[in-house]
C-alpha cells in the first residue's frame, strides 16, 4: 500500500473515531432528505458493534429517527424521501436485499407503544409470523409466545390474559409487548426509537433493565434524547447535531471526555 493510501485510510479511521471489528451494521456516507435539498441526515459513517447497545443521542429534530428508520428501510414507504449512501448488514447491502428478508433480520420498536388494537396479546406476539404467512404448529406458537414474553419479563403479568386485547395493558406493558413482538421473530438487530419517552420512570427502568439483558442475544440500536439513559445502559454512543454525526465513541469515553465542543455543550446541558 502506498503511503498516500495509508494516510487516506488513517483519515477515514479518524472520521469514524471508533474502530469496530466485524460490525453487524456498517453505515457508509448515508444522507437522507425528506424534500429536495433539505437533508435531515448528512454523510453519516458508523459501524455498529455486535451484542452491544449503541445509543443515538442529540437534540430533538437532529435526525436520530431518520437515521434509525433508514436501517430497516422504513423510508421506502414514503416515495418522496431520498436516501443516498450505503448500509451493510454483515457483507450484504441492505438496499439490495428484499425488504421482507431484511425486516426479518432487523426488528423495530417505535416511540409510542403500538400493539395491534384488533389483536389479542397472544396474536400480537406472533404477529410477525402471521403477517409473513409462516405456518406454525400450535405447540410451536405457544412456545414462541411464552419465550418472547418471558424475554421481556411480561409473561408473569399477562399469562392469564393472553387472549385479551393488547391495548388493555398499561403503557409500559404495551411497550414491552411491542419489544416481545419484535423479538418473537428472532431478529439479529433491534432498532428502538425513544422507546421509553411515553413511559413513567418505573416502566422506563424496567425497559432499560430489559435492554441490558437482551444485548446478550441481540444487537441493539437505541435512539434516545435522554442522555442519562444513554449513559446508564449503552456501550457506544453517537451524538448527532443538525443531521451530522458529530461524535461516535465508547459511551464512557464520550461522557467523560468529549472531543467536540458541540458534544460537550449538549452533555453539559447547554442545549437540547
Amino acid at each position: 500500500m502506498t503511503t498516500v493510501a495509508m494516510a487516506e485510510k488513517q483519515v477515514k479511521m479518524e472520521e469514524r473515531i471508533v474502530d469496530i471489528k466485524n460490525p453487524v451494521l456498517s453505515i457508509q456516507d448515508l444522507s437522507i432528505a425528506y424534500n429536495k435539498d433539505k437533508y435531515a441526515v448528512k454523510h453519516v459513517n458508523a459501524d455498529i458493534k455486535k451484542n452491544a447497545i449503541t445509543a443515538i443521542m442529540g437534540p430533538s429534530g437532529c435526525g436520530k429517527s431518520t437515521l434509525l428508520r433508514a436501517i430497516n428501510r422504513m423510508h421506502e414507504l414514503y416515495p418522496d424521501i431520498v436516501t443516498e449512501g450505503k448500509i451493510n448488514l454483515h457483507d450484504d447491502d441492505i438496499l439490495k436485499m428484499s425488504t421482507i428478508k431484511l425486516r426479518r433480520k432487523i426488528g423495530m420498536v417505535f416511540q409510542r407503544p403500538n400493539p395491534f388494537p384488533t389483536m389479542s396479546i397472544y396474536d400480537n406476539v406472533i404477529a410477525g409470523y402471521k403477517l409473513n404467512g409462516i405456518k406454525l404448529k400450535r405447540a410451536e406458537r405457544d412456545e414462541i409466545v411464552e419465550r418472547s414474553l418471558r424475554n421481556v419479563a411480561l409473561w408473569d403479568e399477562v399469562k392469564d390474559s393472553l387472549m385479551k386485547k393488547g391495548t388493555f395493558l398499561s403503557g409500559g406493558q404495551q411497550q414491552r409487548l411491542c419489544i416481545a413482538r419484535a423479538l418473537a421473530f428472532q431478529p439479529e438487530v433491534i432498532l428502538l426509537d425513544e422507546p421509553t419517552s411515553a413511559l413513567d420512570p418505573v416502566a422506563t427502568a424496567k425497559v432499560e433493565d430489559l435492554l441490558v439483558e437482551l444485548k446478550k442475544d441481540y444487537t441493539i440500536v437505541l435512539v434516545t434524547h435522554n442522555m442519562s439513559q444513554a449513559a446508564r445502559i449503552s456501550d457506544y454512543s453517537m451524538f448527532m447535531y443538525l443531521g451530522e454525526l458529530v461524535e461516535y465513541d465508547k459511551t464512557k469515553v464520550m461522557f467523560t471526555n468529549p472531543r467536540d465542543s458541540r458534544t460537550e455543550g449538549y452533555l453539559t446541558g447547554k442545549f437540547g
Partner: protein
Amino acid sequence: MKAQIELANQDNSSYRKLKDRIFFWFIVVMSVVTISPIVMIIGKLVVKGFRQFNFNFFTQTTPDTFEAMMAVSQGEIIPGGILNGITGSLLVVVLASVMAIPLGVIIGIYLYENQAKRYAGLIRSIADVLQGVPSIVLGLISYLWIVKHVTTGFSALAGSVSLCIMMLPLIIRSTEETMKMIPTSIKEAGLALGVPYYKIILRVLIPTGFSGLMTGILLAISRIIGETAPLMLTTLGSPVVNMNIAKPTSAVPLLIWEFYNDPNMVDLIWSSSLFLMGFVLTLNIISKRIAAKRRTI
C-alpha cells in the same frame, strides 16, 4: 430451535411479492371500472344531447307528440323546448328551499345549543331516520297531506313539501356541523357584552358559518333537483308554464320521464338530462369551491 428451522425453510417472499403486485393492480383496475360509468354517462349525455341544445330549448314549452313525430320523420330536430320544466323545477325547488332552509338552519342551531340534551339526541335521530326515507315514500306522504287536503289536487306545493322533507335532514346536519366548528370564544364575547341572543345568531353565528351553511344548502339542492319519483305523485306535470303553487306543475325530471315514455320525443331525453346533469354539476363545483376556500382561511 424448532421454530427457527421452520422459518429458514419457509422462504415465501417472492410468492408474497407477486401476490402483492397482483392485488395492487386489482385495486387499480377495479377503481377504473368503478368510475367508468360516470364517464360513460356524461359522455353519452353530451354526445346525444348536444344536438338539441339551442335557444328554443330554453325558451319554448314542450311540443306535442304530433309535432315531434313530424319533425322526426323529416329528420329535423324536434321543435320546442323544456321551458315549462325549467320554470316548474325552479318553482318547486325555490318553494322547497324557502321552507327547508330557515327551518333546517334553526333546528341545526337548536341542536348545537343543546348538544347533550336527550331531547336533542331524539331530534338528531329523527333527522337521521328522515334522511334514509326513500323519496317515493315522501311523495306518498305529501300526496296524503297536501294533494288530498290542502290544494285538493296535484300541485307545485305538494311537490315542494316532499322535497322540503328531503332537504331538511341534510341542512340540519350541515348546520350543526358548521356551528360546532365556530370557536365558542366568538359567541361568548358577544354574550359577555349583553347582546341579545337572537342578534348573536343573526350577526355572529350565521355570518361566521355562512360558507359552511351554503355548502350544505347547495348540496341539498343538488340532491333534490333531479328527483322524479316524489313529483310523479304530487306535481303530476303540465304542458304549459305554471307559476301557481296550487296547480299541477311540470319539472325537468318529470319531462324526461314523459319523453322516455313517448317514442316520438325520445331525442329530447338526452338534452334534458344533459341540462339537469349540468345543473347538478355546477352546484357541486360551486359548493366544493366554497368548501375549499373555507378550509384555506
